[in-house]
């Protein structure tokens, strides 16, 4: 019975997508209602499944997808891939986050997107996204996960470019999809390496995990560069991590996320804060035996994540658009999640994933509430003083800011502290050798996080209103999700700190060297010093002494230019990759396509035409010419027959 329910779970939002479009065509509000009902229904089903979930989880196979088994003893790569779902504790957490926060955001969107005119498309895509994301986390093997992986990329493209009549928004959607695809290519190469070199005829996660835990990842395989060889685990781990950098916006493939703010704010909240971008962490968690067998790659993950977190945090400090601040913040916090996973204690990454989902979704929805209430104003220089006009939005935004700053007892403190502790305690020798600069950098990033978030809080909600609209609080459908999420932002850390590791460790075992340290509330407040410092500094500068900010901007002008230019990642990519590609395409088009291929086809036609004209010359209409030709033909026949 439960297995049936499990098999149907992702298809509830798929049906919802269909219904939202069909019903929404005639009556726009019906789209939002259908989609929200489908989202809530999938949440209810998830809760039901979790409540009766056994220790070992469930496997359910829907149908056989790929069956290429040659039944030979030696040689040939057999492959059997069923379209199957696996519901265990890890998948349960992800599904609860996806459907729970998804439902809240659907409810929010019914008010946010009211009057848009294309609600039927919007809610169809939103439910389609839920379907794809559920496929991703429920997949029992890599191909099914990849179907969901691609699906969320597609929905991200559709939703970022939702208002496609604006060329910039459409371009942002394309950018997201293309950058994602680059990561997907690496993902596929990793999958192919598993098929070829692991040679177990299956891509099932449990099977792969068992093999790698038993040491199958230590075989050497030829690497793609020169004649050197790498271990299978390193190769696969690196390929999958590159795929994860595309989906979860790490260096070098993070450039799509800030542009993705072109989409409606609920999209930013759902896809680019709470769910799709977490797919990379989920992948690492699912295949943690592979990563555990590749400590060098774990160290690379750690370095990339730390750099990403720091760089994104520095960029966020100078942003004026409230959504861009949150976008770079998301990139930075994703870096934190990868840092946690790279230490070897995978559950800390998942813990931060969950707490981040709560407070980041709350922040994005709050920003949407501000945008909605101030008549589509996103620039913080034209906001201010909104605490008077939008009290609920203000309080929830405040709570979530304290959470992301990592101040005890809010949720972000517990997950960030766990990440720092895991990094310090990690026995990975490469990580240990880096800890001299790594730990201060991570702490600095945490402080910066607190600083720029408080800056956005102060610029938006304190002081006096600098805009021209009439701000008002948002309707209940928008404030209710804010309230629910902020409650979780307060209590989520404390509630999950003990339960989550126990829950997840049935799937992803916690390493033996990890000893959680139980701190008293006084010690915890002391540990939050960097967050408190960041918040305090921002309050001091932006509330009390704004001249300091102006002076810093003037004195540090060259640094500010780099930060405002986002370290010129986009410009470098444009110069090194996009422009040469464009020029190559142009040459291929103007020469190969137009001159060679079209020339061949058109030339063949011209040849036929010319030969027709030549043949026409024999058709004179004169009977005697025809007689002559007949005669000549028969003479030729006789000659050929008798002489040759």
């Amino acid at each position, binding site marked *: 019975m439960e297995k049936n329910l499990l098999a149907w779970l992702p298809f509830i939002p798929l049906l919802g997508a269909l219904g939202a479009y069909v019903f929404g065509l005639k009556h726009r509000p019906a789209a939002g209602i259908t989609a929200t009902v489908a989202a809530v229904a999938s949440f209810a089903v998830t809760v039901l499944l979790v409540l009766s979930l056994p220790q070992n989880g469930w496997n359910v196979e829907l149908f056989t997808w790929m069956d290429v088994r040659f039944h030979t003893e030696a040689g040939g790569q057999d492959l059997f891939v069923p379209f199957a779902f696996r519901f265990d504790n890890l998948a349960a957490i992800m599904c609860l986050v996806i459907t729970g926060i998804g439902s809240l955001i659907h409810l929010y969107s019914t008010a946010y997107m009211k009057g848009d005119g294309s609600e039927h498309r919007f809610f169809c895509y939103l439910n389609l996204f839920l379907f794809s994301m559920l496929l991703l986390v429920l997949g029992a093997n890599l191909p099914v996960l990849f179907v969901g992986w691609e699906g969320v990329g597609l929905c991200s493209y559709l939703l970022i470019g939702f208002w496609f009549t604006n060329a910039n928004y459409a371009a942002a959607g394309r950018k997201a999809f293309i950058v994602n695809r680059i990561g997907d290519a690496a993902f596929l190469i990793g999958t192919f390496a598993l098929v070829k070199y692991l040679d177990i005829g299956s891509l099932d996660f449990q099977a792969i995990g068992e093999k790698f835990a038993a040491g199958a990842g230590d075989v050497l395989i030829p690497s793609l560069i020169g004649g050197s060889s790498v271990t299978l685990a390193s190769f696969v781990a690196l390929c999958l991590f590159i795929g994860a950098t595309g989906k979860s916006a790490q260096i070098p493939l993070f450039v799509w996320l800030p542009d993705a703010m072109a989409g409606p704010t609920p999209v930013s909240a759902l896809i680019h804060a709470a769910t799709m971008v977490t797919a990379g962490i989920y992948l690492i968690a699912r295949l943690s035996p592979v990563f555990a067998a590749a400590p060098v790659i774990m160290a690379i993950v750690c370095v990339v994540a730390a750099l990403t977190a720091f760089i994104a945090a520095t960029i966020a400090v100078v942003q004026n658009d409230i959504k861009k601040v949150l976008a770079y913040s998301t990139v930075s916090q994703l870096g934190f999640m990868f840092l946690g996973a790279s230490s070897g204690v995978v559950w800390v990454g998942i813990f931060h994933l969950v707490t981040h989902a709560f407070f980041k979704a709350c922040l994005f929805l709050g920003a949407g509430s501000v945008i909605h209430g101030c008549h589509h104003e996103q620039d913080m220089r034209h906001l201010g003083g909104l605490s008077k006009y939008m009290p609920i939005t203000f309080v929830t935004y405040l709570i979530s800011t304290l959470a992301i700053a990592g101040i005890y007892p809010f949720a972000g403190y517990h997950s960030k502290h766990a990440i720092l502790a895991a990094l310090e305690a990690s026995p990975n020798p490469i990580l240990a050798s880096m800890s001299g600069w790594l730990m201060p950098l991570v702490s600095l990033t945490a402080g910066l996080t607190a600083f720029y978030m408080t800056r956005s809080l102060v610029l938006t909600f304190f002081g006096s209103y600098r805009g021209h609209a009439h701000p008002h609080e948002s309707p209940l459908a928008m404030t209710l999700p804010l309230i629910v999420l902020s409650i979780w932002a307060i209590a989520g850390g404390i509630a999950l700190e003990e339960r989550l590791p126990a829950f997840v460790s049935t799937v992803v075992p916690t390493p033996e060297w990890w000893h959680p340290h139980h701190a008293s509330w006084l010690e915890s407040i002391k540990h939050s010093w960097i967050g408190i410092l960041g918040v305090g500094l921002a309050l001091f500068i932006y509330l009390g002494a704004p001249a300091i900010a102006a002076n810093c901007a003037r004195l540090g002008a060259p640094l500010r230019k780099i930060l405002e230019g986002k370290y010129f990642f986009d410009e470098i990519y444009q110069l090194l990759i996009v422009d040469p590609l464009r020029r190559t395409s142009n040459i291929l088009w103007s020469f190969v396509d137009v001159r060679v291929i079209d020339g061949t086809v058109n030339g063949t036609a011209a040849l036929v035409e010319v030969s027709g004209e030549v043949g*026409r010359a024999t*058709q*004179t*209409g*004169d*009977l*005697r010419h025809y*007689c*002559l030709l007949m*005669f000549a033909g028969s003479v030729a026949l006789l000659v050929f027959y008798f002489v040759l």
Partner: protein
Amino acid sequence: MMTLGHYLTVATALFTIGAVGVLVRRNAIVMFMCIELMLNAVNLAFVALSKTVGNLDGQIVVFFVMVVAAAEAAVGLAIIISVFRARRSVDTSRTRELRL
């Protein structure tokens, strides 16, 4: 003494004259006469060869050829009469409807 060679030479000469006549002459009736000439040249060749080989096969074929020639003459002359009725002339160089 008349040998086979003499007969075949005459037959070839007649055939050639007939062929050239078909190609060169413009009057349709004269063209027909040349066709008949070609057919008769072939008949002569068949009979001469039949006498040389010793059996009657060639002479039987001559009968067939004569039948065909007669039928063809009938049909051809009917066509010429229709063409003449349409354009008051049997000059073949004037019929150019088949020209593209």
